[in-house]
């Protein structure tokens, strides 16, 4: 399994060059730097160089109290801040041994699923843009905007929302929340089909994504990828089903999987996930229970000593928080298991033997966010 990591030290053959993609490159989704060893245009080796956005989030966590740290997690995967917040709050709640009240869990589920749709929409737009379809990005941003408006009305922020609070919710839902969500879901159904019309049957799109970046189920498990990347390889595994959290145990939804593990399969998986997310939201929004929104956690959050690993199915994959408490108000060790970081590790495996043009398709299909990769 061990691949040569440093491609620049290897001897170059007659037709080989080293091409540097990123950090200042339009298609590397931020500041990823990829060093490619090319034979003509064929990639025969790659090395990801990351860390341009490293802010030492884990170290910061050790120096903040539990509630203080919550806004920081929004800034790891900054296009799915709600999901990050959910994972963190639930992890701390588990560490404390409390559970959020049902109403809070329902609202959390709705917002997190909306966030999943928003994140996937962003992925779809940029992925299509990478492959040269310049129009979908405007359509997907149009719908994403609706979701962000709901977030804004709920908690006052659009991107880094900090929507939840340890023990439940910070805010009660606003008047008309249910209607807004339902309206979005109503409109969204045909919109997601519209994207499908633009791409799914498009011959060029299929040619560009079929058989590109194939990851077999075996490789996917070995490389530890999670989320749509894992499911695209045909492994039917989703934390929402495996270890239900929030209110997911109450709802019916399917886990889409791919067959071949190529970029097209991952595309289909994410498209279907958006539809399933809509399904979950519609179920949840009709059954939000009444009741308190915050469990009794006390003013000062001081979990008893011990440790917990809690993970959720973030839009990008398994987002885990491993928190070690020493009984003080600050975590002793706070580890974020970033899905993007580990998914990106599969890049080298996926990209070998493909062409330069596929590199951007593969970066796009991995759906990485550098804020999360570098933390």
């Amino acid at each position, binding site marked *: 399994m061990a691949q040569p990591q440093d491609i620049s030290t290897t001897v170059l053959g007659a037709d080989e*060059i080293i*091409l*540097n993609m990123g950090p200042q*490159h*339009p*298609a590397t989704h931020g500041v990823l730097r990829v060093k490619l060893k090319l034979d003509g*245009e064929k990639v025969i080796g790659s090395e990801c160089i990351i860390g341009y956005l490293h802010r030492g989030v884990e170290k910061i966590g050790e120096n903040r109290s539990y509630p203080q740290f919550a806004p920081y997690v929004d800034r790891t995967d900054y296009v799915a801040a709600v999901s990050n917040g959910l994972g963190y709050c639930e992890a701390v709640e588990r560490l404390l041994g409390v559970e959020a009240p049902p109403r809070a869990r329902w609202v959390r589920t709705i917002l997190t699923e909306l966030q999943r749709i928003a994140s996937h929409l962003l992925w779809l737009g940029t992925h*299509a*843009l*990478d*492959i*040269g*379809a*310049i*129009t979908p990005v*405007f*359509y997907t941003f*149009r719908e994403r905007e609706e979701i962000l408006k709901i977030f804004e009305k709920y908690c006052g922020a659009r991107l880094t929302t900090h929507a939840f609070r340890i023990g439940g919710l910070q805010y009660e839902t606003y008047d008309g929340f249910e209607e807004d969500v339902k309206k979005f879901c109503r409109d969204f159904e045909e919109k997601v089909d519209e994207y499908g019309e*633009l*791409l799914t049957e*498009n011959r*060029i*799109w299929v*040619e*560009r994504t079929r058989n590109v970046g194939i990851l077999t189920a075996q490789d996917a498990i070995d490389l530890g990828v999670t989320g749509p990347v894992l499911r695209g390889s045909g492994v039917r595994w989703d934390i929402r089903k495996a270890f239900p959290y929030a209110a997911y145990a109450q709802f019916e939804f399917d886990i889409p999987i791919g067959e071949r593990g190529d970029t097209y399969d991952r595309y289909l998986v994410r498209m279907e996930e958006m539809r399933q997310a809509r399904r979950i939201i519609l179920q949840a929004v009709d059954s939000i229970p009444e009741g308190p929104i915050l469990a009794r956690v006390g003013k000062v959050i001081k979990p008893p000593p011990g440790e917990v690993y809690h993970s959720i199915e973030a839009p990008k994959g398994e987002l885990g928080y491993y928190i070690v408490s020493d009984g003080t108000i600050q975590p002793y060790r706070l580890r974020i298991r970033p899905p993007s970081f580990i998914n990106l590790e599969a890049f080298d495996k996926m990209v070998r033997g493909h*062409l*330069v*043009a*596929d*590199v*951007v398709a593969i970066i796009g299909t991995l759906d990485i966010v550098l804020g999360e990769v570098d933390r």
Partner: protein
Amino acid sequence: MTLLLETLKPYLLPLIRVLVVFLGISLIVAYLVYAERKILAHLQVRLGPMRVGPHGLLQPIADGLKLLLKEDIMPAGADKGVFLLAPVISVIAAFTAFSLIPFAPNFYITDVNVGLLFLIGISSLGILGIILGGWASNSHYPLLGALRSTAQLVSYEVALGFALVSALLLAGTLSMVAIVEAQQRQGVWFVFLQPVAFFILFVAAIAETNRNPFDLPEAESELVAGFHTEYSGFRFSLYFLAEYAAMILVSSIAVTLFLGGWLRPFARVRALDFLDFTPVAVLVLAAAWCFRECFRYPATREWRWQRLLLLGLGVGALGISAGLLLPARFLPGGGEGLPAFPALTAIQGVFWFMSKVFLFLFGFIWFRGTFPRYRFDQLMSLGWHFMIPVAIANVIFCSLAIVLSRQMGWGLPATLWLGTAATLLVAALLRREKA
């Protein structure tokens, strides 16, 4: 004085034509960029440029000024002379070729015996600009972009050549004017006789101009900007100009060869002569739109210039349409011989010609908004495994069809359609083999 005019007279008219065509093309190139931005914007549920002038109508000027003011950076490792020369070659190649395009029966700069060949020759010089620019930058991305670009251009040029030959079989001449006249004489646009050749020409034209879905040389998500990555300021915009001029050029070639050039649709059907009024109608409509927009703007000070501009445009359009109210052929002295009012004939011709060209250009823009980008190997495979064999098959079958029609006395369209069917069969076979 009269003597001077007399001596200058033979040179005056061509010179005026040269200037008109030249300025017209420059203007269209500038506004093509604007049109592209507007059309794309409306495809993408947004408005596009709206700030400079009414509906952003002065945006091209603002863009030009901005580019003029941009700093000019030349990479340290670049080959200075070649770096300066390369975009100039591209511009000259793209623009000069217009001197051979007949815009109207009496409005073209020149018509030569080997017109089409010359046209292709001149426009193919643009490749040199790309390849030299990519090389001179001394940087990975431009070089890779230039190599890709050249490989793509030359590949599709072969298919383009064969498609042109198919049309020439029908026209029997290389002179651009004579090609349109042949279509007039035969009473049918060649697109209806040679649909396959037209399709190949169309696809090759998109590829030749590096447009989506074949815009790999400048695929911004892969190669940043392709061969002109290192170009900045007005040097960059020279490439840009050349690219858009080339778009118009290939559209013009396609229109001349396949869509009857300056000919009106159904030019021979007398019952449809009212179509000659279309330029007038279009101008009146444009004027109406200008007036409506003009009155929709709020009557505040900051909109004053916008209103004035719209008003001026509207009045201008009305004025021209008034002058054109009578199509040339209804005026005394018209008819079969020389037109009595050459200017009217010219404007009619230019109108139909440019309408067809704009149809093409709209297609280009539409494709850009719709399609993802091909991968390079897929592009080459499409070119070499599909387009070229189909184009060759088309030439063979069409020449067979012409001989057949002559030997057996069958109608030419019928045999040509037979040939087209045979070509399509070949195409289907090729497609299946690939799948």
